[in-house]
């Protein structure tokens, strides 16, 4: 306490010293002039602070409100949600559709609202930090001017279905399996050749994205895509002709089976006929033998002496 008193005294002494050094104490008139102004400024600041505080308190009340009266709460939420876009609209003014369309046209770009793919591999990317405004504008642009995948890829660009040839099987009378099989083999070769060609083409022109992801050659341009499509089309048409030929082959095989069955039936019939004829023949042979036996007996009876003479002559 003594020390404090001493300090206070020192201050006083210092004040007295300052006065003694020539500084004049403030006059009452000066105080009367500046004090009201200071009070006025202070009151203004208080008013400003008070006017801001209720808004915050109001928001807090809405959040902290218990779920007793739902209608009130919903009303508050609706009011809040109605206020929020107004505030946002005041801050962000999205460009109109016309403006965006013009920009898109000027930039020579097409926006899609989707990535038309089943599987998306992520190899690498470039990162950019943007203001939330840019993020919102991108979403807005997607909503307003982006095209759907169907609009980007017109339906008439799809490859046409190859025409199927029709065959009149009733006119196929001569069964030449060797030709059919040979043609099938040739067609298979054609398919294999096309596939090999396609593989070679793809290997030459398209570098797998994982191996060299950033080279310009990894991007397939329209010409290459057209070539690929034509090869695929050719391949599919060849496959189709093979399928048709397989159908012919199956039909011919069926006809062969039918003919085989017919042949079997005919064979059996012929065998039965043969058996009957054989039996008839055997009967006839038996009759012939019988007759010949009778004849030989008669001959033997009539010509026995002659034979004895002959025998005698031969011995002599």
């Amino acid at each position, binding site marked *: 306490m003594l020390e404090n008193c001493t300090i206070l005294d020192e201050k006083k002494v210092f004040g007295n010293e300052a006065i003694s050094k020539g500084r004049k104490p403030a006059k009452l008139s000066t105080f009367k002039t500046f004090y009201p102004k200071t009070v006025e400024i202070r009151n203004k600041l208080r008013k400003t602070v008070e006017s801001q505080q209720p808004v915050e308190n109001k928001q807090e009340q809405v959040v902290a409100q218990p779920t007793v009266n739902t209608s009130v709460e919903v009303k508050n939420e609706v009011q809040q949600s109605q206020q929020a876009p107004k505030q946002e609209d005041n801050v962000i003014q999205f460009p109109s559709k016309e403006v965006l369309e013009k920009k898109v046209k000027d*930039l020579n770009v097409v926006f899609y609202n989707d990535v038309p*793919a089943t599987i998306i*591999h992520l*190899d690498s990317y470039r990162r950019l930090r943007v203001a*939330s405004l840019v993020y919102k504008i991108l979403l807005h642009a997607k909503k307003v001017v982006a095209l759907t995948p169907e609009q980007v890829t017109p339906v008439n660009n799809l490859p046409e279905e190859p025409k199927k040839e029709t065959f009149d099987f009733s006119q196929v009378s001569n069964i030449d399996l060797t030709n059919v099989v040979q043609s099938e083999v040739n067609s298979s070769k054609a398919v294999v050749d096309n596939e090999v060609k396609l593989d070679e083409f793809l290997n030459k022109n398209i570098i797998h994205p994982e191996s060299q992801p950033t080279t310009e050659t990894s991007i397939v341009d329209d010409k290459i895509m057209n070539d690929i499509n034509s090869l695929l089309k050719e391949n599919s048409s060849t496959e189709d002709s093979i399928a048709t030929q397989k159908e012919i082959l199956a039909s011919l095989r069926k006809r062969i089976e039918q003919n085989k069955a017919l042949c079997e039936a005919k064979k059996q019939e012929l065998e039965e006929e043969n058996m009957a004829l054989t039996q008839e023949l055997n009967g006839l042979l038996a009759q012939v033998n019988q007759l010949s036996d009778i004849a030989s007996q008669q001959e033997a009876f009539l010509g026995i002496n002659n034979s004895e003479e002959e025998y005698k002559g031969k011995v002599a």
Partner: protein
Amino acid sequence: MEEKKMITLTLENGTKEEVELLLSFKFNDNNKEYVIYTKNETDENGNVTIYVSNITRVGEEITLNTISDDNEWSRIKDLLRELSKNE
């Protein structure tokens, strides 16, 4: 607010990651396609991190690659700037 369009990316190690698709686009003059997506990462200033990749198609599958060409990258940034202009 519009519903977010989410896409699933398959990473190199086979894991899958779901991200928000912002926009995909194609430059008409060179037919190069790009995609802009975000993982909704924001910094303390409210800035959003977006990712831009080049699209390479192989059949039904697509691969997202980096944009190595600085001219391409500048062009994409110009595009974003132009879109952000309030004119």
